């Protein structure tokens, strides 16, 4: 005897797509969200756009972005390391996403200022991720999905290859829901610092988590506990440079720092450690978090001068500022002589005569400097001087469970669970095993959420 047809564990984009789809297919659905109502929605709260293939302009995006082009982009960022059938399935299913989202009440807007490069490939939903989440919750609740907040899933109970019930905690009490199918869409484990330390050691203490404090990977662990097969590098993090003054959790998009290519980056010893001019956004966006994670104290500083101030998207904190490099070093608690030496050496190596062209890989480089700055190199010589203190900011983790094309979770023995499904960050490592493709995490979550919802409902509901 079941309490409900489908239990959805999680409360972000993938969970909501799954719950809505299962309900629309006739199943009774309970959704268990670990966060309280005002913090519901997981990392989806911090998103703003979703990537999908489309032919010709539509309400959400401009021009054509073919399936082949999207697949090529995915293969490029993952360097080919992807489950090809699942990748192709995601790309194919993405064709209908924009319309499906509209049917659930989502509205589209023009790309935000400063994001024109995404206007063709990605759709921007009105108001960003929290508004998207709010819209989905309203639709789900109107359709009759039962939503439980502050319900953290602790265990999945199986009978052989079939899930029988899901156990969750709320207010210190334990609850058990018997179900005919379970869909886990509860995100990654980036908010569990202890778990991160298993792979990263004490360095993980200094990571800032850009998203929800509720992504502790408890449901992911529960799936591993019943024999789900692991996929993705457990050490894999998507990690960018964020302002060190940012809150430990939930700093979102406003704490990211994109100033590094405009000057130099130094570590706590006042030394440069990587080519600041290596590549354009978004590649540079994705590498600096890991680079800083490898520096002493997981700390670095972006140093630049008055010439380039205002040339990048402003962040939530103003940069630190001083009239001389010596005084700036004092503000940053760096050894002043060391920083001055580093900057002088950098300035002396900048090849004269180049005109910096931001937005393209120009030919302004350093000569005889290690590491070099291969583009956008210009002297840091115009007072006042500025600095952002930096820390690694974790966006998401790549570790997850293996799934099949029906979103069913694969067991150790290679067979799938009959009625355990996964969607979103906890399985995106099947497809996005590494790298970053703006708006594609939501694509995977939406596609597999829909598939999981449909399949979970189809098993039990007669048309």
């Amino acid at each position: 005897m079941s309490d409900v047809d489908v239990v959805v564990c999680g409360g972000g984009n993938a969970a909501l797509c799954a719950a809505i789809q299962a309900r629309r297919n006739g199943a009774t659905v309970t959704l268990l969200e670990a966060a309280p109502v005002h913090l519901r929605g997981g990392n989806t709260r911090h998103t703003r756009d979703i990537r999908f293939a489309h032919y010709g302009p539509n309400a959400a995006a401009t021009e054509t972005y073919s399936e082949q082009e999207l697949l090529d982009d995915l293969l490029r960022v993952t360097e080919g390391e992807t489950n090809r059938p699942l990748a192709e399935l995601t790309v194919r299913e993405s064709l209908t996403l924009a319309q499906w989202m509209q049917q659930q009440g989502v509205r589209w807007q023009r790309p935000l200022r400063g994001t024109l490069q995404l206007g063709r490939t990605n759709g921007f939903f009105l108001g960003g991720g929290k508004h998207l989440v709010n819209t989905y919750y309203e639709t789900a609740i109107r359709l009759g999905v039962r939503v439980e907040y502050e319900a953290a899933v602790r265990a999945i109970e199986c009978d052989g290859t079939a899930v029988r019930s899901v156990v969750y905690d709320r207010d210190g009490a334990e609850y058990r829901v018997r179900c005919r199918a379970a869909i886990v869409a509860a995100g990654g484990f980036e908010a569990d610092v202890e778990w991160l330390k298993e792979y990263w050691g004490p360095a993980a203490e200094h990571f800032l988590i850009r998203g929800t404090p509720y992504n502790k990977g408890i449901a992911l662990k529960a799936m591993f506990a019943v024999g789900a097969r692991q996929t993705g590098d457990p050490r894999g993090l998507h990690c960018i440079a964020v302002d060190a003054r940012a809150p430990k959790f939930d700093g979102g998009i406003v704490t990211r720092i994109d100033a590094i290519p405009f000057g130099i980056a130094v570590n706590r010893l006042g030394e440069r450690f990587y080519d600041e001019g290596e590549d354009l956004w978004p590649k540079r966006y994705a590498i600096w978090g890991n680079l800083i994670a490898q520096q002493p104290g997981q700390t670095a500083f972006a140093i630049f001068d008055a010439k380039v101030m205002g040339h990048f998207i402003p962040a939530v904190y103003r940069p630190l500022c001083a009239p001389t490099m010596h005084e700036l070093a004092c503000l940053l608690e760096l050894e002043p002589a060391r920083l001055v030496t580093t900057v002088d050496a950098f300035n002396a190596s900048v090849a004269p005569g180049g005109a910096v062209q931001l937005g393209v890989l120009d030919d302004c480089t350093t000569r005889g400097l290690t590491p070099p700055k291969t583009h956008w190199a210009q002297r840091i010589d115009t007072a006042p001087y500025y600095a952002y203190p930096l820390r690694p900011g974790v966006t998401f983790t790549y570790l997850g469970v293996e799934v099949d094309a029906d979103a069913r979770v694969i067991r150790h023995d290679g067979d799938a669970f009959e009625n355990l499904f996964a969607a979103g960050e906890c399985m995106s490592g099947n497809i996005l095993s590494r790298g970053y493709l703006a708006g594609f995490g939501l694509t995977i979550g939406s596609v597999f959420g829909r598939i999981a919802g449909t399949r979970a409902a189809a098993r039990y509901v007669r048309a």
Partner: protein
Amino acid sequence: MFELDLTAELDRQFTVCNACRYCEGFCAVFGAAELRTAFGERDLAYLSNLCHDCKMCYDACMFSPPHEFNVNVPAILAEGRAQTYERYGFPRVFARFFRTPLTAASVFTLAGIVVTLLAVVASAGVAALWTQQLGSGAFYRVVPYSALVVPAIALALYGVAILAIGAVDYAADIGPGFAFLSPASVGRALHDALTLVYLKGGGSGCYDVHRGSQLRRVFHMLVFWGFLCDFAATTVAAIAQGFFGRLPPYPLLSVPVILGTIGGIGIVVGAAGLIAIKRASDPQPASGRMIAMDYAFLATLELVALTGLALLAFRSTNMMGTLLGVHLGALVGFFVTAPYSKFVHFVYRSLALVKNAHEQRDVSHQPP
């Protein structure tokens, strides 16, 4: 002057907004903020009044309380509006009424009614309050024509003058200067104001009784067009009397009565709806001062419209004298307090819309 803390807080919060920009699609405020990197008093005066208070940005904000960034744009802009009204109010001694809107509305409305009834008694005798009056010129047998029209014109001219002074000061500050008042900008702003486009929340409606509600825009339209209908009814009546010698009361199927009835019903329904929405709304993204002004103004409007409709309904009975006195008294209260009430919002919001049309004229919607 604005309170310093409010300006500093605006600067702090909009620095978060400019780093995020997710709310750009809801209204004009965020696009305007993106043209600025620091926020001072002029920006507070401008952005506060550009805001139409749909509150979607609060509902959609992942940094709203209890997040430590504590972003609550509707609250700070509502407070900014309340302070704008007082700051540009003239003379300063009367601008204090903005601080106690409910008291001001109650006292002046009550005083208006008492004084008008006393004037009726003094000129037409106490029996006029409960004597049936029929036929052409019936109203003027209760309140003489000159006693009605002289105070009305005086109050109206006073109100227009006060609003004009506030408008000139405000425009000069936010402009700065008056160059932004070009025909093209004014035309665009007129469109934005008449359609209340920024109460649409970019298509998502408002965050009040429920998320995505379109009711505020509907009720506001009813009040606005109702007010204009009543204004038109009064103008038509003045023409009928002045040029054609026809004295009120007019027949039920005459232009002034039809327009007046439609307008009155519009205001009664619209103002009641707006009050109900305010009562049902989340109190967090709001300012206590602004809410008090809203209630005071809506209640005053509601009283004028209800007494007007009551007068129409019972004008052939012996209650006409009293009802006329009460209605005219309520109108006195309304017009005395109008330059010091929420009524002024349209002046500053319209100018903010013109400024916005002007400064966005060269800004592509898809910048590099």
